[in-house]
């Protein structure tokens, strides 16, 4: 089963490489390419566009949880092309899908990326400040985007911008005139993932660059489910690590896990993770069924992000002072967890 393969990769590749990748600020050579070979995106795109399957948000959520359990930065790197290709698959017309999907999935992992987030504290996906205006039979894009993965190397970027009051998506070549890519961003977490702020200064694209049938609420819900599933993976990583530590660490004559103060924390962490995961799965299931999922995906992400912060904070707490030392991964998971809500648009299932 696919999820088993993803879990194996997360266990044998992502997890062991995570610490060094975080410290060095880059992934070891071949790591992301190997994750790409799992075929998560290829298996979501029909044969007619170069893939070998159909998109399923439930399967995608299961895979995203496993990958993020291994390493969130690595998971997001592997899923970056998804955030470009899946909106094209769902919101593009036939010609757009024919043009843009085969290059993404045809030849190994390539940095096709999406730009949704904007650099202000009250960023709201449905109220984008990057604006598209109609001009000479095409569009001109102006605004700022932040935390765009691999923007400096990207072949194409899927830029979300407001057109007459509704969010739309535009395929923009990285080399387009007026598109400026800033320095690599330094964040609280996700150190291994190259992220960039980009500025769009009257960037002109042809009319065909706009995804013709974009259902933005649907795309947004799919972004939310992907990130929420990843949040569950980070939570589970922290929970499992703290649980094993608590069984081994002795204090006052026995393992600290035998103290209710610790054991009850773990019981609550497990309960919160399971409840949050069920909300993610339900929203994913609704997406697959074509049922309304906007509210459930939004609440699932809020819940999963809260869970990730609570669980990873407690994981650090259970390790005590040792949790604060970077030799243990719990401090990294705590840093990654705080960013969950701002990772919207970095992955899609």
């Amino acid at each position: 089963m696919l999820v088993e393969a993803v879990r194996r990769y997360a266990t044998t590749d992502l997890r062991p490489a995570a610490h060094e990748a975080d410290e060095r600020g880059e992934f070891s050579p071949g790591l992301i390419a190997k994750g790409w070979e799992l075929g998560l995106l290829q298996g979501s795109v029909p044969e007619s566009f170069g893939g070998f399957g159909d998109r399923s948000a439930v399967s995608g959520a299961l895979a995203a949880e496993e990958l993020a359990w291994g390493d969130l930065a690595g998971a997001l790197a592997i899923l970056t092309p998804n955030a470009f290709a899946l909106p094209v698959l769902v919101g593009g017309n036939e010609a757009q899908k024919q043009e843009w999907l085969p290059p993404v999935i045809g030849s190994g992992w390539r940095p096709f990326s999406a730009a949704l987030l904007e650099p202000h504290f009250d960023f709201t996906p449905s109220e984008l400040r990057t604006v598209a205006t109609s001009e000479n039979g095409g569009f001109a894009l102006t605004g700022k985007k932040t935390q765009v993965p691999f923007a400096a190397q990207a072949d194409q970027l899927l830029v979300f911008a407001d057109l007459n009051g509704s969010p739309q998506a535009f395929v923009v070549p990285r080399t387009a005139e007026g598109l400026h890519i800033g320095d690599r961003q330094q964040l609280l977490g996700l150190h291994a993932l190259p992220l960039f702020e980009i500025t769009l200064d009257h960037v002109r694209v042809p009319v065909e660059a706009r995804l013709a049938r974009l259902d933005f609420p649907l795309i947004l819900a799919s972004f939310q489910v992907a990130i929420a599933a990843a949040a569950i993976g980070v939570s589970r990583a922290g929970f499992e690590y703290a649980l094993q530590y608590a069984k081994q660490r002795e204090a006052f004559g026995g393992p600290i896990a035998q103290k209710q103060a610790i054991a009850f924390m773990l019981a609550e962490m497990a309960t919160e993770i399971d409840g949050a995961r069920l909300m993610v799965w339900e929203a994913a299931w609704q997406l697959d069924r074509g049922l309304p999922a906007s509210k459930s995906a939004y609440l699932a992400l809020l819940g999963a992000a809260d869970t990730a912060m609570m669980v990873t904070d407690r994981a650090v707490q259970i390790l005590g002072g040792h949790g604060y030392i970077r030799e243990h991964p719990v401090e990294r998971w705590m840093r990654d967890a705080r960013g969950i809500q701002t990772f919207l648009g970095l992955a899609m299932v």
Partner: protein
Amino acid sequence: MPKMISFETPKSILETVTMIETVATEMMRPAARYYDEHEHETPWDYINFMHQALQATGGLTMAPGPSTKDGTPRQDYQRLAHYVEALSWGDAGLYLCTPRGGLGAAAVSATGTPEQKARFLERFNGEKPVFSSMAITEPQAGSDTAAIKTTAVREGDQWVLNGEKIFVTGGRKSLEDTPGFVVVWATINPAAGREGIRSFVVEAGTPGCTVTKVEKKLGIRASDTTAILLNDCRVPLGNMLGDLEAKPRSGEGYKGVLRTFEATRPLVAASALGIARAALEFLKEALAEQGVEIRYGLPRSRMTNLEREVTDMEIGLRSAWLLTLRAVWMADNKLPINAEASMSKIKAGDVVVQITQRAVELLGPVGYSRRHLLEKWFRDAKINDLYEGTGQINRLIVARRILGYGRKELD
């Protein structure tokens, strides 16, 4: 690998839930205040109506049935969870007065032999409503059920029971108001601790078994909570639940009685969440009346305090309800639910207490007023964090399970 559950509510369940919602709206809500203020009055109007309604709908029962004959997964526990949620949305106190089963029946269902099930459960299908209860708690033994002192001594072809039981939900209805029964936990060997504990069916009218007190409570006042005295109370040998002849392995008898809790905990969670949903809906309606709409999709930095409160309540409620549905779905699919049952109850107990307490606070003098049922739901809510295992006991159960510990390692 976490278990993927079905998120689709079976159509037949949805149809009945719609029916129950009508009962909840038309009958339970209007009666809720009256029985809250007339604490020890048995709500016969509700009881008789429900008995007839449940009988008229045929298979509808408050106790889960046996496995399906054709091997398809059962839906009994899922069905029950939905019923209990909808009835508790109407009124949690009245819900506890629903005939055709109860905790005693659940215990017989979970741990009785086929003969015992036939003998004790038949009465719930009769013309008149009948009740059953569980009698576990004693004045000196609550969560520490292994410390119970009520004894069962075999004399010839009878068990002789002696002891005092308290906090028996519906005890008066099971023993005095109707020809029901209580399932009594007693020890057959006080020296053996929990290994000596067994459960016994004591039927209404059995000499030596008397209701000695009906408690006055914070909430769920429509439901009687009683003390029961067992004084040389004699029951037939066959009233001990389980197979008398089968040699139980070490601890088997106690595990048997604990299985009852695994089955009923998700139903307590469902009841809690019915109250929670009622309170949340009331809060949102009261806000809407004042023109306060809850917007979804905003980052927390742009939410009003009320929006933040309400979205957090909705997340808690949904997550607890899905944990509950998972537990009953797994039970229907014959999967062990030791940890899952406790998780659902931990979360539901927390959520209902939080939602009702916050809703009363947020609505200020309106929330605090007895003109509305919200203050009653605040009082009703708390029992769900107490009975069928306190929040702490359920945390202990989950902790032991995830850590792979027994009582010896984690006490």
